């Protein structure tokens, strides 16, 4: 799956999890801009795992600040599979 497709999918998941039509760009920060707290982050992670059929270590969240960070992590995990 190419990066653009992953990005589109992630943006869709974010809108579902946040239940709002918020503006999202690759630079959007998950915590600072979208107010994703630890609970929402876990919900997001579970959705991403199901949608891409991958397992994401919780630890990875420490390195994920923006939407693009998450996209790159998914790309990496898909490549490993």
């Amino acid at each position, binding site marked *: 799956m190419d990066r653009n497709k992953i990005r589109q999918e992630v943006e869709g998941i974010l809108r579902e999890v946040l239940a709002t039509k918020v503006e999202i760009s690759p630079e959007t920060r998950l915590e600072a801009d979208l107010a994703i707290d630890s*609970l929402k982050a876990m919900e997001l992670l579970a959705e991403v795992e199901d949608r891409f059929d991958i397992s994401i270590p919780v*630890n990875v969240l420490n390195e994920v600040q923006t939407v693009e960070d998450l996209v790159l992590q998914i790309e990496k995990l898909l490549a490993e599979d």
Partner: protein
Amino acid sequence: MGIFDKFQRLACSLEEVRQNFGGFNVVIEKILSPTRAVVNGHRVILAGTNNYLGLTFDEECIEAACRAIREEGTGTTGSRMANGTYHSHLILENELSAFFEKPHTIVFTTGYAANLGVLSTLVNREDAVILDADCHASIYDGCRLGGVSVYRFRHNDLEDLEKKLHRLRKKNLHQNLLIVVEGLYSMLGDRAPLAEIAALKEKYGAYLLVDEAHSLGVLGKKGRGRAEEAGVEEKVDFIVGTFSKSLASIGGYCTSHHAELEILRYASRPYIFTASLSPANLAAARTALKIIQDRPELKERLWHNAYRLYQGLQKMGFELGPEPSPIVAVRFRKPEEALKTWRGLLEKGVYVNMVLPPATPDGSALLRASVSAAHTSEDINHIIQAFAHL
């Protein structure tokens, strides 16, 4: 940006609670018995503790603790590795081994330290932990300290657990996988489907650690916990637990059939670099452990109370945890409703725990009521009536 700026959001939430409800911090002004205290000026029934067998005021436990202080002093002033291993630490480890029928046991200074000490050491960056999403913070913190990769599965969701095990095994046939669950979950009071989890552990060649913090003395014919109740003790590699609930003291332990557990004494930083358990706490825990074995009627009384409270609240239409247990969780969709109910109960002489997100499993607010073997039938009636007349 100042060093405290990161707490701004938390400070705002706290201020909101203070303004609307006058806060919810509780000081036990005077503790009177396992089930009675003075809280915020009210004499209350304590229905929000972890004193499942009601042993904190047991004469035998008190006497044993007092004797230990007179004979061994008030503190050990040292770590287990240095001058802090007393004969009584070893005796308690042996008694726990005999109780669980597991030959190797290590005692830690708290239950939190037990999870921190075991998980930070047992698994490392080469391994993977697959844990239930509702596991206690000490489990997450232990994993974080050791740097192991952590994968969460949805609470009690066997399909999700298997999906994760399957993916990890497919990727690496030889990686050490450790499944971590709790026997009885502290917030909703529901059990882990342990027989099925143990079967998955075998299928995927993983290890299994069960935290029996809330199930020791509560579940199983001999009170050994959920693993005993589910008939899978031999398949559980590590049992971790605490002395601060049914054993009415403070401290923690890990017990196992793996002889290699002993090496953790020389590698686990939370075991090595903290003062050891005090003689009074050791003596109280030892006595309570003996009482669990000698007085099975306490467990029966506890469950009798648990069923009565659960059914009483269920009849009134409260949204409760999924199954009856000594932890009866009442859910509220809005935190404001939970806060109002909590204050109303306090005024009617009942103290329960107030749990707000993010400490709750699904973001809802909870009132966590818990029963004790020391509650009388009248106490349970009083608690039910207090909920009825809010």
